[in-house]
């Protein structure tokens, strides 16, 4: 539990020539096997932070060291690192022109030297794990939101990532479907997957998180275990935020 997987230092991301500072000098360490939950008000830079971790957002300055390599380095092949980092989006982003099985198998088939049989078998196992083995031939538009998000999670898992990034994975779901997605994530956490989760589901944070990070105005204002953050918050902004979300 104490090997550092991702080390972020002085990370900044500015937009429009510095007029918008989405992220300012953020430093943080993510250890292997940890579940880190990122909370904070809307516009505080949570998504930007998460998206910088796999370079979907290019940082303005700072460093992100993964396995001892600074991935901001120009010589680094970012695609190799992205394969090790699965990402789950708020709006699922399944590929609508492919059936579920193809959604899951296209990346490992094209990017890893695995046979179609191996890849398919693995996909079917993962589908069974999330209870959707009978939907392999369906197309994304035939699934409910909760089913789509479960597929998005196993699609990312097909690449055997070392860390999974979640950006508000349940925010676009009808309330009755939130549980089924959170259950899959809890299961994943139990198996020791390193996870960084941006969410407004405080229940999930309390139950599953090893560390909770509170962001505001592009900075990490407070960090601690769930008990520290939710029961003994120190800074006023966090107290204020919790008062609003924990009604």
């Amino acid at each position, binding site marked *: 539990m104490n090997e550092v997987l991702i080390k972020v230092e002085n990370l900044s991301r500015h937009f429009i020539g510095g007029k918008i500072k989405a992220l300012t000098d953020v430093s943080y360490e993510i250890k292997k096997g940890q579940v880190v939950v990122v909370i904070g008000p809307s516009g505080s830079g949570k998504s930007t932070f998460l998206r910088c971790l796999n370079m979907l957002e290019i940082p303005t300055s700072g460093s992100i060291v993964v396995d001892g390599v600074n991935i901001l380095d120009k010589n680094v092949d970012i*695609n190799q690192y992205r394969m090790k980092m699965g990402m789950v989006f708020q709006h699922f982003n399944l590929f609508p022109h492919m059936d579920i099985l193809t959604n899951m198998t296209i990346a490992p088939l094209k990017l890893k030297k695995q046979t179609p049989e191996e890849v398919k078998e693995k996909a079917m196992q993962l589908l069974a794990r999330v209870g959707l083995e009978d939907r392999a031939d369906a197309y994304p538009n035939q699934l409910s939101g909760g089913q789509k998000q479960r597929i998005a999670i196993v699609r990312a898992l097909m690449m055997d990532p070392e860390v999974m990034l979640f950006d508000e994975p349940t925010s676009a779901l009808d309330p009755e479907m939130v549980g089924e997605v959170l259950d899959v994530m809890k299961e994943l956490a139990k198996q020791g997957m390193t996870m960084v989760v941006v969410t407004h589901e405080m229940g999930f944070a309390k139950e599953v998180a090893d560390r909770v990070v509170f962001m505001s105005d592009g900075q990490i204002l407070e960090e601690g275990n769930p008990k520290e953050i939710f029961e003994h918050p120190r800074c006023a902004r966090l107290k204020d935020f919790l008062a609003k979300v924990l009604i």
Partner: protein
Amino acid sequence: MKEWFAEIATAFSQTFIEANRWKALLSSIGVTLRITFFALILGLILGILVAVVRSSHDQLEMDGKSNKIINILNSLCSLYLTVIRGTPVMVQMMIMYFVIMASTTNKILVGTITFGINSGAYVAEIIRSGIMSIDKGQMEAGRSLGFNYVQTMGFIIIPQAIKNILPALGNEFIALLKETSIVNIIGIKDLTKWAMNVQGRTYEAFMPFIGIAAIYLVIVIGISKLMSLLERKMRNE
């Protein structure tokens, strides 16, 4: 009434049957179709290339990165689009025939290349709009799985974009077919040229021109049917 029918029958026979004119007609239809088809293929290839260069350039700009080679290619593409869309296709064909390809004797090749290059400029913009119509999350999902930009374009973005722009591409295909009727200016024996030749012999304009109008129309309707069939097939997939 009877007389009128007799007149029509004479004109018909004069136009299509005498001197084996139907043989020349068939071959002229072949010429028109061949120029349209190969110009379409060339236009699609050019259009996809230009659209991908321009979209990747825009993407790099947004990422705050820039690549010298892409910048140069993008400038070339912009120049191409501006020049081709800003000048008449007739003038382009003259330049191609008398200047750029002056040494070739293959007129059909000149016509095909002219219309391919011309069509490519319009196809490029159609494809670019198709690429831009795809949700940004698709590119991000592709990249987050480890695909590079070109792979994501090829596996994920372009297949969806093509589906969306099929109607616009069909219209471009039809416009292309109709526009090729000017290739007779450089002496290509296409469908329109056939009618002009017949009129020159028989001094009768009605039958040959109404005749080819009907033929163009039938081909256009055929293309429309084909395109909607293709669309329906892709939608079902």
